C-alpha cells in the first residue's frame, strides 16, 4: 500500500487546490491520518474511492471527536530597556540598561469538532487510511460535508455523530437523531455537556443525588425551573 505521504501527493495531484495535512500519531500503531479541508472533501472522497491504485471502496468507521478550547500558557523572554540609578553616582543620575524578564503569555486555541473516517480497500485488501475533517469552531460553524453519497455506510454513522456530537453533515439525505429521541436537545457526547436537571431522582436518594434533588426542589419552589 502507498504511504501516507504518497497518498497525500496523489490527492494533491488529482484534486487541484486541495489542502491536505498529515497528522502525526506517536502511538506504536503508526496509523497516521490525513487532515483534509472540508471544501474539497467530497472530491477527495470520490477520488479515493475511484482511484485504481487506492480503491478505498469500504468506509468502515465514522466517528466524532470533541476537542475543547485549549488555553496555552507560553513563557516568553522579553528584553526591555529600563532606567536605573547609577550606582555610586549622584542622586537623580540614571542610566538605561537592558533587562530580561520572563513573561507568561496566555492565548486560547479555539476548540473544534472532528470527524474521523477509517477507510479500507476490499478490492486491494489494504488499509486503514484515516481521514479527518475539522469544523471551524464548536458553536455555530459546525457543518461538514457528508460522505453518504460516496459511501453509503456513512448514513447511520454520520447520523450518530450528528446525534451525539452535533456535527451537521450537509448533503446527508436523512439527517435525524438516531440513538436519542427526536425531542432531545443538546448533544450528549460533547465534553462540556451538562445533564439536564430533570432526571428521575432515586427513591432513596443519598449523597450527590440527594443534594441535587434538594437543590432541584428549592429551584422549583422558587419558580426558577419547571418541575
Amino acid at each position, binding site marked *: 500500500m502507498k504511504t501516507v505521504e504518497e497518498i497525500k501527493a496523489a490527492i494533491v495531484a488529482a484534486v487541484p487546490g486541495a489542502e491536505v495535512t498529515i497528522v502525526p*500519531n*506517536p*502511538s*506504536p*500503531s503508526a*496509523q497516521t*491520518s490525513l487532515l483534509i479541508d472540508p471544501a474539497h472533501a467530497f472530491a477527495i472522497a470520490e477520488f479515493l474511492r475511484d482511484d485504481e491504485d487506492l480503491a478505498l*471502496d*469500504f*468506509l*468502515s*468507521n465514522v*466517528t466524532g*471527536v470533541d476537542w475543547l478550547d485549549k488555553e496555552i500558557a507560553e513563557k516568553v523572554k522579553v528584553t526591555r530597556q529600563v532606567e536605573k540609578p547609577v550606582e555610586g553616582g549622584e542622586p537623580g543620575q540614571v542610566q538605561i540598561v537592558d533587562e530580561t524578564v520572563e513573561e507568561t503569555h496566555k492565548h486560547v486555541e479555539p476548540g473544534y469538532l472532528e470527524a*474521523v473516517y*477509517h477507510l479500507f480497500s*476490499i478490492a486491494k*485488501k489494504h488499509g*486503514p487510511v*484515516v481521514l479527518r475533517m475539522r469544523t471551524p469552531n464548536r458553536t455555530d460553524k459546525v457543518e461538514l460535508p457528508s460522505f453518504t*453519497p460516496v*459511501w*453509503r*455506510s*456513512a*448514513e*447511520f*454513522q454520520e447520523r*450518530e455523530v450528528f446525534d*451525539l456530537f452535533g456535527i451537521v453533515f450537509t448533503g446527508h*439525505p436523512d439527517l435525524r*437523531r*438516531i*440513538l*436519542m*429521541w427526536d425531542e432531545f436537545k443538546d448533544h*450528549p*457526547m460533547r465534553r462540556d455537556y451538562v445533564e439536564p436537571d430533570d432526571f428521575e431522582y432515586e427513591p432513596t436518594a443519598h449523597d450527590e443525588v440527594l443534594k441535587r434533588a434538594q437543590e432541584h426542589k428549592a429551584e422549583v419552589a422558587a419558580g426558577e425551573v419547571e418541575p
Partner: protein
Amino acid sequence: MSTTSTDLKNVTARLARSEKLEGWNRPPVIDVEGDSELLELAMGPHHPSTHGVFRMDVVLDGERVIRLKPVFGYLHRNHEQLAQTQSYLASMPYTDRLDYFCSLSNNWAYALAVEKLVGQEVPERAQYLRVILAELTRIQNHASTIGFLLQEMGASGTPLMYAFRERELILDLFESLTGSRMMCNYMRFGGCRVDASEAWLDGARKVVAALPKFIDEFENFLMSNEILMARCQGIGVLKPELAVNAGISGPMLRASGVNYDIRKVDHYGIYDRFKFRVPLGDHGDIFDRYMIRMLEMRESVSILEQALKEVPGGPVMDPKAKIRNFRPKAGEAYGRIEAPKGELGFYLISDGSPNPYRYRVRPPSLINLTVLEDMCLGSNVADVVLIFGSVDIVLGEVDR
C-alpha cells in the same frame, strides 16, 4: 402471504427501473399504482421477532413493503461515554454487554485495539486460547442465529432448541474457564486472565469432536426442507456492489459473494497458522446467508481442531504487561477483528491520562442494518421478519 408470479415480475421490473433512476447508492423508490391506500405499520418495539427492542416503521401497499425505516436507541446507555469516564481496564466487562452472545469476541477486539495503542505483545499460549474461545463463540452464535431464523419461519422451538443444546455445552466450557456463561470478561491487555487447565482443554476437545455430528444433523434436518427453500431463496437479495459500498461485513458480506474475511486479510492473532476456507455465496439472498453460517461453523470446527492439537505451554499473560497505573502515551489506534456478526472495531484516542480521551465501538450490527430497507423493498411484509432475522443483530450492540 404469497404473491402471484406476475405480481413479482411487476415489482422486479419496477425495482429495476427505479434503480436506474436513483443509482444503487440510494434505496429505490417504489411508485404506487393508481389509488391504492397505504398502510403505515409500526413493527415493534415489542414484537417477538425483533430480537430485542427495535422498531421498523413500514409503509405497506397491500402486503408489499414500499418504505421501511428502522428505529432504534431504546437500549441506548451511552456505552462510549461511560468508557471515557473510567480507566481502560474498567471498560473490559462493559464490552461483554455489547453483543452479549459473543462476549469473548468483544473482549478480544477491545484488547487488540489497546494492544495496538501501546504496542503490547501477547504470549503464544494466550493467542491459542483466544483463537479457541473466539471460534467456539462463532459456532454458538451461528447455531443460535440459524435457530432464531427458523423460529421466525414458523418452526417454533425445535431447531432453536437443537442449537441451544449445543450452545449450552459451549457455555459450560466458558463457565468453567472464565466463571461466567455469557459475561466472560476474560481477556486482558497482553494476554488472558486465567490459564486453562489440561482438563479444560480435554473437555474442549471432546465438545469439538462432537460438533461435526451436530452440524450434520442440523443441516440434514434443514437443508432439504421445502418451506425453508421457498421462504429463503431469492428473497432479500443484497448485491455485492451495494454491500461493499454500505460497509456490510461478516457473513452477510460473504453471502453476497465478496471474498473478505478479516482473519485472512489482517492475520490478527495467529490466524495465519491455520488452514481454513472462506465460504462465499452466489445470490446474496436469505438462503445464502443461512448457508454461509452453516459452512462457517464447519470451518471454525476445523480451526479448533488444529488449534487444540498444538496448544503450547508458557504464560497466558505477558509478564512485562503494565496493569497498574496503565497510561498509554498520547496517540490513537483502530483495531478490528472478524466477530461472528461482522467487523467489530474499537477506535481509541489517548491523551496520556488513565482514561481514554475517545473510545468508539464500530458495531457491525448497526452498520449491517443500513441496507435493511434496500433488501425489504418490494417484498412481502411476512418476509421482512425473515430478512431482518438473516442480518443477525443484537440490540445491545446496535444501541450501545
